[in-house]
């Protein structure tokens, strides 16, 4: 039985000036449709590389990725990426930023008014409709990231890839956005692969947490299923024993079994 998204035996080598650098080795992961997966690990462990391979932005040196029965070998709106620093086009308004992708994906499939409705619907989904005629520099960091999410959702991706989407935000804004993402995930049933280095975030949002060992030649260390019932409420969970236990396990993996490589030297 094949899974919706399958990463099999993926390894990648980069040609650098000081010779070849093996970033990933033998990465295997199966993701079911509608699952929320978090990739967690120390910085430099190759989380982003995995995501880039999933996006098709990098080509795996060996192994491969199969999504919905098709091999992944180039970027596509099927696998939309939410970038860490939003990557909105500063010369376009919020609306136009979302429109750019929609026009490309639904060319010939939707009429002009259908597209406009669809863009409005997606802006609404991330609660940003009030700012749709503003330019990115006129809105806050959290709002920019919301637009980034809307741009991806509007392309109706099979998998939503998120590269540390809330890493650059303050704690309160981050909590708001996490709630929004949970709400959207519950409503649309989107399959999500998210990179994070925030343990609480990983436990709160994920169905499974994929913990990666340190590079070079990083690979998947452990996979922790999070069975907390949804919808999840951050306040109620703060003292929930299952939540605390899951959190404990991730911390143990990160700081006990796989210490940050820089920590030894320090």
């Amino acid at each position, binding site marked *: 039985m094949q899974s919706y998204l399958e990463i099999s035996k993926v390894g990648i080598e980069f040609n650098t000036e000081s010779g070849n650098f093996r970033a990933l080795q033998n990465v295997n992961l199966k993701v079911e449709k509608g699952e929320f997966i978090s990739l967690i690990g120390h910085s430099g462990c190759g989380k982003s590389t995995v995501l880039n391979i999933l*996006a*098709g*932005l990098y080509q795996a040196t060996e192994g491969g990725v199969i999504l919905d029965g098709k091999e992944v070998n180039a*970027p*596509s*709106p099927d*696998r*939309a*990426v939410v*970038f860490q*620093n939003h*990557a909105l*086009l*500063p*010369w*376009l308004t919020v609306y136009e930023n979302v429109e*750019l*992708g929609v026009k*490309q*994906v639904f060319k010939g499939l939707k009429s002009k008014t259908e597209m406009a409705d669809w863009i409005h619907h997606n802006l609404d989904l991330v609660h940003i409709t009030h700012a749709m005629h503003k330019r990115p*520099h006129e809105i806050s960091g959290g709002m920019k990231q919301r637009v980034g999410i809307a741009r991806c959702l509007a*392309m109706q991706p099979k998998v939503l890839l998120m590269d540390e989407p809330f890493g650059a935000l303050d704690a309160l804004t981050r909590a708001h956005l996490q709630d929004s993402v949970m709400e959207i995930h519950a409503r649309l049933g989107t399959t999500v692969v998210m990179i994070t280095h925030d343990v609480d975030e990983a436990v709160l949002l994920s169905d499974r947490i994929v913990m990666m060992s340190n590079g070079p030649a990083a690979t998947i260390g452990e996979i922790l299923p999070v069975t907390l019932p949804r919808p999840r409420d951050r306040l109620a969970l703060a003292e929930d024993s299952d939540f605390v236990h899951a959190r404990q396990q991730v911390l143990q993996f990160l700081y006990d079994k796989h210490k940050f490589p820089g920590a030894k030297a320090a």
Partner: protein
Amino acid sequence: MHSIISRYAFIKREQAWRFEWSDIPGGMAIAKALRAWSLAAAGILVFLLLWQATANNINTSLGQFPGPVQVWTQIQNLTDEYGREQERRTDFYARQEVRNVQLLAQDPNADVRVRPYTGRPTFIDQIQTSLMTVAFGFFIAMLIAIPLGILCGLSESLYNAVNPIIQLFKPVSPLAWLPLVTMVVSALYVSESPMFEKSFITSAITVALCCLWPTVINTTVGVASVDKDLINVSRVICLPTHMHIRKIVLPSAIPLIFTGMRLSLATGWMVLIAAEMLAQNPGLGKFIWDEFQNGSSDSLGRIMVAVLVIGFIGLILDKLMLTLQRRVSWDKQTVLR
């Protein structure tokens, strides 16, 4: 005690009476602008005084070096000359008109012609010619430079192929090109009723050859340094190449493209004067050369007028480019200098 109170009252009255810029709306901005303007005026005044003082002490075989006063006289002379020439021109055409009407009255089938006026080009005419030439040359150069720069920025292979050629031709002086351009234009530009004069084409091409490079180089850099994330966005959305260029590459490269264009236009304007001088093409350069050969006591003054006008036009051209950049650029907030 009494005296202290009265003195205090006096100070109070004085303060109430004194004008403060901050009291009126926008006052601080006005005050700042006034300060900048008065400093500029002071700078110019000092310069004029120094200039006059120095000029008084320099004697050449064509008389004293022109100071501001002589230059001012020559400015008046040159505008008067233009006015007189315009009058002569209208008179000339009026006379023809009258003669033709008379001819037609005598014989309705008479062969009537209007002969073009062939007076000496005045200073103002030469300015116009120079402006036309630099505009045309610059336009040709941009037509080549911007697309070439975009291609070089997009493809590193093309850049590596083209770069040595750019580096080789970039430092070449316009005067080195001039004889070659002149000969090529005379050999190739042959037509019964030419739209442009040969000398015009020669100057324009020389200008174009020299102002290509800054734009090519800056456009290349601008296009090659588009934010990596934005390029990834474009890849994920699968934008076709022409959309990628229009929506992502051009907007982010605009500031550097304009930097290149401004450098190009400034180079072009400098090159043009030299080319006109050497090649005897009509324009400001030829005006200067003619005055120099003429060698009258007014010549130096008239040349100095041309020098100032050249500088002033260069300044205006740059301001025009800045205005254009402000209109085209998406980012209205950056301070442009």
